[in-house]
Structures are given as C-alpha cells and as structure tokens.
C-alpha cells in the first residue's frame, strides 16, 4: 500500500482513538554494499527497507511508536502503543506537533549520477584500490577492510497541522584499511571517505597515502611520557569533536550534563575558533531542509570567534529556553524518541597547511589514529583519555613513529588551548554520536601523553 493511503487511514483512526494532533514520519532506504578480499567479491548486499514512526498528542501528552510493517493491521499497534506511552509520561515540558515553518530552504541533496553508478564500476574501483595498494610496496600483505556502500534515503513528514515535507538524499561511503608486514611486525592503516561523486575518489592517491601511512608506523620508539604540544591530524580532530559533539545539545545543557549550560555569549574557546552547523552543505551526508519535527533547517554558527552563540535545539528545548527551534530535532532513523543532533557540523578552516604546522613545531606529538572514543570520554566533565597512534616531531620534522600511546586531557580546556588551525577539513560519520562532523588539523598547546 502507499504511504498516502496509510497516512489517511492512520489519521482517521487516530482521531477516533482520541488523538488531538498527529504526525507520521517515514524513511525509505536503499543500499548497495560490496566488499572485496584478495581481488574477489567477498560480500555483496542489497537492501530496501522502510519504516514509519508515529507521534500523537493524547490527553495533552505525546505518545510515540514505530513499525516496519506498512500494512493496515499495523495501525492499531501504532495507536495503542502511542496511547499507552503518552499516558505513562510525567514530564512537564511537552512536545508539540509542529505547525510548519514559514519558509523552507530549497536544495537538491540527491545525485542522479551517483544513483546510477553501475555495480561493475563500483567493484572495479575496489579492485583498482587493491591493485594500487599492492603495487605501492612489497610489504603490503593485503587489505583487512575494503568496501563500498551506496545509500539513498527518502524521508517524509506529514502531520495534522498541515506540514507535508519530503526529500531524498544519497551518498557513497568507501572504507579501506591496508595491512603491511615487516618481519613479525604487522601494522595497518585505514580510512573512510564519503562522497556524492564517485569521480572524486582518487583511488591511486588514496591507496598510496594509506600504504605510506602504514609503512611510517614501522619501527616505533618509546618517547618520554609527559605533556606535549599535540597536533591532531584532521581526521582525529574530527573524531574528537564528534565524540564531544553532544555537549552542544540544549537537551544535555538543560539536563545539566553539559558544561556549556549558561555559557551563551561567553568565550569558551580561542578567538580563532568558529564552529558551524550547515544543513545545506553541498557534499554533506546529513544535509536536509527539515528536521525530524518538520522544522526548517538553517546554517548557524554555534561558536563564533571563540564565543558560544547558540546551542542546538529542538522544539521542546527551544520553548524552555524561550527561543525558536534551530531545526535540530533528531531521531535515530524513524526509531527512538526525539532528541537533538547536529547535521553537518565543522570547525571553520584556518590558514595553515598541515606541513606548515609541523614545520614550526619545536617538539610535539602528531596523532594520526584514535581508538576507544566511545569509552574513554567523560561527557559530563569533558575529561578524556584515548588510545592513540602517531609520531614524534622534533625541530619541525617528523622524527619517528611512537609506540601505542594514550592522550589525555579535557575537551573544554582543549577548546581554549588550540594554537593553530589547519585549512585541511575532513568530515566523517561516527559510531560514537550522530552527525557528520568535520575538522581541519588542530594544534593543541598541551595534552598528557603516556607511551607504552
């Protein structure tokens, strides 16, 4: 059955069941995924999935439910579950069904070209990468990850206050990790890249850089464990920002779980730092014109020249703060309850090249890989201690790879300890938090480094 018929039936039955206002949100996602191992297709998958969530006001409270079964017999389940969920809530601040924004930005986040990339071309791209990686150096033993995913999502929101929004977006994700071996020593280096244009993947360069990165890790040395100036390469800077991105949520702040509470208008970072959330970013994986409540999205500066200008809001937190929603209402796909998430959020690039930052550093540590991001961060205090890999810098040059390390510090102090900002922004999705987060390389004045 089609979604419009389903919506009509659902809303009609909903009125009878006693709901005063209702909303239907849906996502339909198609993916193609392929992995290669030693030149052959190892995994290959296709999917087409669909899910709907329902929110309805019952006796003034918002009930939520979802299903993946688009059939008339799902309607009683959605309504009864939502009703029971509404009645059990005892929160004072209430969610509302949104009446619509006066203006929605216009944009196209769907690339027809990307949708039409033939499967053999994607497989060939992976084969090329493997070949280039092996040709790059005899120490390359293979790849322990080599996969590509092409995803397209259609999302729509309808409610009884007249909002009807629908849009589509797509993106491609390339994931690879090369393995090298010298004697008994095994090292790997991996990367995940995102694009809306398969031509933008310079696979020869990607493969060569990764092999180089893995080779550079050979012969690591111990260095003294102490505080060092630390250069977070763009991908690790972005991963760190990603991990702490929930501190910009007004929900966290209002619950007292972010130290940015009551900091609006104050300096929270060095004056060179500006953090932007741009739902209209042309290459953005999470670009959108409306959020999960139907609120129009807009580009905003969260931190401008070191001063925090706004937190990210949905309707509920905005009402509590006496302002308008910033359009960051978010649900984990169509499931889950309504919360808050950035869209495409990034640190505005500075003027320094990555090499330039290294060359002026008297002594420091360059971090090229972080691990344990989900467990090593205290979201409440901002303290972190992550496993890391990287290099020792002396007199403007990379001197040696360093044994496995931990780097420890505090996110809020780090924002005030940024000394240089690169111009090399890179974005990524993450398992630690929602959002498509980008950062250039960042030089931090001091972090505690412990070396194995």
């Amino acid at each position, binding site marked *: 059955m089609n979604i419009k018929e389903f919506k009509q039936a659902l809303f009609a039955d909903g009125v009878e069941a006693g709901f005063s206002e209702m909303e239907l949100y849906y996502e339909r996602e198609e993916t193609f995924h392929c992995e290669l191992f030693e030149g052959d*297709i*190892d995994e290959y998958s296709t999917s087409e999935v669909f899910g709907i969530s329902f929110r309805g006001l019952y006796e003034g409270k918002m009930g939520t439910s979802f299903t993946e079964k688009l059939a008339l017999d799902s309607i009683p389940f959605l309504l009864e579950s939502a009703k029971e969920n509404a009645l059990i809530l005892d*929160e004072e601040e209430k969610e509302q069904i949104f009446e619509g924004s006066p203006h929605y930005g216009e944009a196209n986040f769907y690339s027809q070209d990307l949708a039409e990339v033939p499967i053999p071309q994607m497989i060939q791209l992976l084969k090329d990468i493997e070949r280039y990686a092996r040709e790059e150096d005899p120490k390359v033993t293979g790849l322990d990850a080599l996969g590509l995913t092409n995803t397209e999502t259609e999302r729509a929101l309808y409610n009884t206050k007249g909002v009807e929004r629908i849009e589509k977006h797509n993106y491609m994700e390339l994931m690879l990790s090369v393995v090298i071996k010298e004697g008994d020593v095994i090292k790997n280096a991996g990367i995940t890249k995102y694009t809306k244009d398969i031509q933008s993947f310079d696979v020869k360069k990607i493969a060569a850089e990764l092999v180089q990165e893995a080779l550079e890790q050979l012969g690591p040395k111990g260095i003294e464990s102490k505080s060092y100036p630390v250069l977070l390469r763009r991908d690790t800077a972005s991963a760190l920002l990603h991990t702490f991105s929930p501190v910009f949520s007004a929900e966290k702040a209002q619950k007292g779980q972010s130290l940015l509470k009551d900091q609006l208008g104050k300096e929270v970072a060095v004056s060179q730092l500006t953090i932007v959330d741009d739902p209209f970013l042309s290459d953005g994986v999470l670009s959108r014109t409306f959020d999960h409540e139907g609120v129009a999205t807009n580009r905003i500066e969260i931190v401008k020249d070191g001063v925090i200008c706004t937190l990210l809001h949905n309707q509920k937190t905005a009402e509590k703060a006496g302002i308008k929603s910033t359009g960051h209402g978010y649900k984990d796909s169509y499931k889950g309850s309504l919360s808050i998430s950035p869209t495409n959020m990034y640190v505005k690039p500075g003027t320094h090249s990555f090499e330039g930052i290294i060359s002026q550093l008297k002594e420091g540590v360059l971090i090229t890989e972080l691990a344990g991001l989900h467990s090593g961060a205290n979201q409440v205090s901002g303290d972190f*201690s992550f496993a890391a890999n990287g290099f020792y810098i002396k007199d403007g040059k990379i001197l040696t790879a360093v044994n496995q390390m931990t780097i*420890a510090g505090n996110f809020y102090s780090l924002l005030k300890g940024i000394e240089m900002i690169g111009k090399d922004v890179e974005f990524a999705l993450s398992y630690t938090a929602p959002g498509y987060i980008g950062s250039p390389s960042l030089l931090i004045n001091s972090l*505690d480094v412990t070396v194995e």
Partner: protein
Amino acid sequence: MLAKSVIEEVLDAALQTGGDFSEVFVEDRYVNHLSLQAGKVDSSVTGRDFGVGIRIFKGLQSVYAYTTDASRDGLLKAAKKAAEAIQSNQVISRLPLQKEVISSLHPIEISPKEVEKLRKVNVMKKAYEIAKNYHSSVQQVTVRYMDEEQNVLIANSEGKFIEDRRVRSRMAIQSIAARGGQMESGYYAPAAHQGFEFMENMNLEHYSNEASRIAVTMLDATPCPSGKFPVIIDNEFGGVIFHEACGHGLEATAVAKNNSVFANRIGEKVASELVTYIDDGTLKNDWGSINIDDEGELARKNTLIKNGILTGYLIDKFNGRRMNMPSTGSGRRENYRFAPTSRMTNTYIAPGKSTPEEIIANTENGIYTKYMGGGSVNPTTGDYNFAVMEAYLVKNGKLTTPLKGATLIGNGPKTLQLVDMVGNNLAHGAGLCGSSSGSIPVNVGQPMVRISEMTVGGRKGE
C-alpha cells in the same frame, strides 16, 4: 511468520543463478524503551521491527539482501536481485525443509509484552529512589529500561527450518554526583535473556547503590598516575579486557582471512597457563545466551584457550568455508539488516585458585580496577584499549586512593602471557558488542585477574 511455501520459493529463486547455498532469516521484533529522568518518565517508545534477510553463498562469495517488504513479490524480487551477483551454470537443488523443534534453554516466565507500562515504571522509580537517596551529593539519576521480544525463523537450502523466540530485558542506572564545579558519574546496567521476572527479582538495592557509590567515590578520586604497573582487574565486567585483548581476535571474521594475531596458531601456547578462556552460549538466561545462533545452529560451550593453549575459534558458516572448519554456533547478527558473522556470546576466564584478598595482598605497588568501562581492539595488530570507571592505587598490599581517568592500553597476545594470578570469584557482566554484524548482547566475565605489567594512561605523569 511466513508461509513455508513462500520460503521455499525464495530459497529456490536465490539458487537460480548457481549459488550453492541459500538462507532466509525472518525477524519480527517488539521493543520497548523507557527513560526516567529526575524521577519522571521523559520518554517511552514502543516499536516493531519486521524484515527478512536472504543470503546466498557460491564458494567463498557471500551475497546478502534484506528488505522490509515481506510480500511474496517483494521477497522474490530481493532474492533475484541478490542472485544476479552470482553467475554459474552449476545449479543445484535444495533439500526439503525439515522442521526442527528446540526446547528453550532459557525459560521466560513473564512476557514483557503482557506487562503494563506502569509496572515497568514502578521498578524504574524504585531504582531511582535508591540511587538518589544514596548520598546528598548525588545530583541526577537517569534510569533506562529496555525489553524486547525477537522472533526469528531461519530456513536454508540444506533443509533447515527452525524458529526461536528471544526475550531480553535490561535496566541501566546512571548516577551523577556533584561537588563544587566537579561532576562524576557512575553506571550499572544489569541485563538478561529473560522476561519481566528479571526486573522483579533483581537486586535493585545493590545495582542502584553501586551506580551512586561509584559516582560519589570518584568525587574524591585523584588523577590516575601514568606508566607501567601491575594491574589487578576485578571480576564481572572486568572480563571486557579479554573480550578485547583476545575474544575478537578468535572470531573467524578475522581468523579466516589471516587478519588476526591468533590465526593458524591452534595448539600453540598463546597465554599464561593460568588462562582458560571459554565462550558459552548455553548459560541459563544470561544476557549473551542463545538457543540457536542466527544461522540456526544450536548454542554450545566452546573452549577457546585451555591452560594457555589455543584450542579453538568462534566460527560461522561462511568463514568456516574458508577455514575448512565447521560452525561453532557463533553466527550472530544485530537484526535482519546484517548478514551474520562469528561473534561471542558469554565469554569468560575460568576461575583459578587465588582468593581476591591474596591477590591484593601480594601486590606491592599497582593499580586495582573495580569496574571497567568499554574498550576496543584492532584485531589485525592486537592493540587494544579500554577505559576504567573505578580504580584504586594499591600500596603494600592494600587499596588506597581512588583514581580516575585511567585508560589501559596494550597488545592482546602480550597481555595474555602476563597473567600471573587468577582468582576464584568468577562473575559475569552484561554489555553490547559492536562489530561488522551490528551491535549484539554479550556477557563478559572473569574472576579477579592480575596482569604483571600494563600501560596505564592517566593525567598524572610519574
């Protein structure tokens, strides 16, 4: 869940282009999530996942398709689309489906679906009250509740036709204690492959008090010294260290492709002889337990390391092909959106002979970790890391100052050799493990274990 005749048609359609194995996985799952913040229910969501995964093998190639369109046409379309990836003239026919009936190892007394939300909320509120009243510095308590009923049907071209019902329940208590501008948190999240009886019978006092006690204790903690120390890791969730340091490296996902430091080492001494490491999916009603895995294989007890000698791996059907070894009942997946692969269930270090008191008394200068946070591993290199939630400095055989902010790092194979004391207090802790087939419930477990030297990363140099 689906008509047998439709399943047969789908299995056949999947084999049409020359696949040598086809499989259908049907999932119908009901979930409830509730959240209590400051004593008030602030979120309650109910949902139903329903979808089908179709898998085809041809030699060492695996093809997977999944869809929420469970109509006959939708499934046949998905099966055909997947089959397009295979091109061979050798079309085989499948064996007739033989229904297998299993008796559950994990009895469910009270189906969460039949329990009113109010009863669930009452247990949450009780947990909240206990945690909140633990100490005046406890400022916030969040209680989350989850239950789910997952019904699966697995059928394949080898004639398998089997169904299972998995009911799981979990409560997570997070306390935040504050003093001055400082905030610290504590967390406890008991869970089981059990119905609502788990919530009613659980020791709420203990779990709620512990969450708050950790937060309050950490207010007095000093930054952990960094450097190399003997490290004592207490039982229960402490087992996460071996989950990372060795469990993931024993999964066929990594072993089959030689991407594990443990590949091709069966029969070799890979750990101290004090280490016996077991994965057991049959433990009654435990969080990581299963009746059958997600390929329809019966759960079993697999001994992976015995007295330091590597004896086995965790193997799924597909990677078993590359390894030329049979499945060990370890094929698991988060849901129908993932093809299954080898994963852990309840994995633990078998108990040794030392008492916890002995282990601590025998440690002159080291770190004792009471509760661990999560961690991760790079299976290719064996490098792992994990966070410590609650730790103490050990001086002259006694626990002294509480420590915070510690991360332990090391290399799995090296750490396994450095286990020099194993306690007699085995216990298990619940966690969620994320890997290529999604996030799945697992238990980690161990008695108290001492590792003669580990690298501790903290914020205080020494």
